[in-house]
């Protein structure tokens, strides 16, 4: 990745961090309801992989920790925040919520609340790409714990048998809700599990943007060149609990400290400072600007937006005026 791009991505990652931390505050203020799963600590995963792909052209989907994947895919942060505030200006008009962010114009195909649910959906999108003959790929980000659901195996098997252009990215943050991976999973290294399906895979440091980008480039090229699926495991850590209703009691302060020292933003910032690409002051200035932008622009938009109208309650259950419901237009 070029230095200028790294600088741009660092700023985007800083935005992601501040966006998520502001969501935390809004949740505490009860402006955001339901369940809220934050991405802080895992930023290099989404940014590294999607820098190596073509967001807006390639299809992207994930489970419920989805705000940042949507934003990096091109969904407006205002529309995401307004969705979290349950407003009609939200990307899903206030009908989806934090776990169901969608932006199909940007080919962000959704956030889903069943941990392994997207496995076959992503393979299906890849099947559609193959039938239509495009050069897109489908990128599916899921957590390590999703791999313990049956559809992981079913989907990887089908993706391999049918040679589908799908990249599965495993964000291994070591915990399935509150249970550590060693206590729930026989094979802790997730990339090894896909060997059973003869799918090429790699495991790399998910906290280092450069490392993620380089590994993702190989993965994306493999899939786009028509060689079938690929599985990329990124070792990472979430700073917040599984969701906001999680006290983090199952983790030690020592472990959290170790991972705090490997913060993806700090790793990239320090590298760019050392290379003379940015100064610490410049980074601090970004931070101030981003916090102000989120407050004055994004939060204000979400706060000021109207609630969904009552007619939305029934609007999207079934297709409107579909002629085939009446046996065709004839």
């Amino acid at each position: 990745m070029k230095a200028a791009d790294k600088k741009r991505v660092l700023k985007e990652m800083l935005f992601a961090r501040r966006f998520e931390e502001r969501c935390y505050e809004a949740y505490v203020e009860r402006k955001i309801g339901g369940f809220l799963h934050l991405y802080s600590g895992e930023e290099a995963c989404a940014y590294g992989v999607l820098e190596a792909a073509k967001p807006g052209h390639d299809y992207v989907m994930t489970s419920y920790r989805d705000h940042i994947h949507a934003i990096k895919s091109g969904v407006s942060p205002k529309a995401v925040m307004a969705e979290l505030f349950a407003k009609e200006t939200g990307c899903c008009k206030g009908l989806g919520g934090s776990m169901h962010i969608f932006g199909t114009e940007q080919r962000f195909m959704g956030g889903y609340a069943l941990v392994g649910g997207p496995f076959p959906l992503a393979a299906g999108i890849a099947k559609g790409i193959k039938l239509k003959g495009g050069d897109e790929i489908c990128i599916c980000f899921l957590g390590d714990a999703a791999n313990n659901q049956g559809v992981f195996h079913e989907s990887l098997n089908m993706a391999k048998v049918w040679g589908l252009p799908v990249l599965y990215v495993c964000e291994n943050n070591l915990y399935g809700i509150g249970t550590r991976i060693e206590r729930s999973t026989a094979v802790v290294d997730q990339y090894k599990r896909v060997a059973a399906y003869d799918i090429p895979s790699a495991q790399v440091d998910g906290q280092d943007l450069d490392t993620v980008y380089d590994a993702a480039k190989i993965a994306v090229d493999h899939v786009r060149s028509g060689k079938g699926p690929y599985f990329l495991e990124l070792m990472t850590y979430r700073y917040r609990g599984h969701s906001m209703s999680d006290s983090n009691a199952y983790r030690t302060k020592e472990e959290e400290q170790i991972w705090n020292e490997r913060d993806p933003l700090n790793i990239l910032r320090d590298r760019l400072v050392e290379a003379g690409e940015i100064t610490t002051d410049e980074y601090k200035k970004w931070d101030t600007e981003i916090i102000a932008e989120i407050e004055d622009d994004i939060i204000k938009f979400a706060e000021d937006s109207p609630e969904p109208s009552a007619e939305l309650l029934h609007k999207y259950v079934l297709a409107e005026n579909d002629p085939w419901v009446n046996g065709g237009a004839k």
Partner: protein
Amino acid sequence: MSEIMFWEALRRAHDEEMTRDPLVICMGEDIGVAGGTYKATNGLYDKFGEERVIDTPISEGGYTGLGIGASFVGVRPIIEIMSVNFAWLAMDQIFNTAAKVRYMSGGQLEAPIVVRSPGGTAHQLGAQHSARMEKVFMGVAGLRVVTPSNPRQAYGLLKSAVRCNDPVFINEHELMYNMKGEVPDEEYFMPLEGSEVAREGADVTLFGYNISVHWCLAAAETLASKHGINAEVIDLFSLSPLDRDGIKASVSKTHRAVIVEEAEPAVGVGSEVMAIINEECFFELDAPPVRVSAENVPIPYNHKLEKMAIPTAQHVVDAVLKQLGLS
């Protein structure tokens, strides 16, 4: 009109829709090279190839989800689940995604899939191959449920279901694939909502769907010939949504209702039709509505006990006579 078998009607609908639109595909266990357990896709593998007539692994949740994902990008999958008993494994994908994705995405995405699957009791298939699951599908918003009782409906419902933008579950029956019936020679589309009057009558309405329509028709013949009772038979080919207007119209005419279902009674078509009658036309009733349902048991293997678990036309006749105070 030509008289063809139920499976031939399904096969013709597949063939025509796949010929019309290259993005219509079909997928399921043994549907390709083997030609399909019930022959609904017989010969299509040779005609359309393995990319569009897909023999899947035995992974119901996986391939149903894969079909849903493909539908997000314009593909129109017809998914055959070999037995409705296996559809339990695909419920997460059907209910959590297909039925809800348009709603939770604020109208951005939809899942225009068709899932076809036979249920019902056949011949000594035992507890885990004899489920009647239409009640389960009927209870979820965002999903259409239709169920053909003859080859014409099988053809016309599949034709419309493939083109409709909603996910549609088509509830078929293990014992009906070789049933013969008239199907129009030209293209024919059934509505996905409503009901049909299978037999006009004035004294009592027998509500049936899928195989139980035939029990109702047989019972109506007996009631007419032996008891002088003129029963109307309503074919509820759409189970979700149910035809409130059609139910109301018939009950308002006959003032009596008997609902006939092959499934266990609880939370089923019978209870739902009764609720609609209560809500729409309670004061038209001359007698309390009656359900004729299966026994509330898993289906036994023993042939005699299996027969005892499932209603027959005679049960329908008996229910009508009792309702009329004639037995």
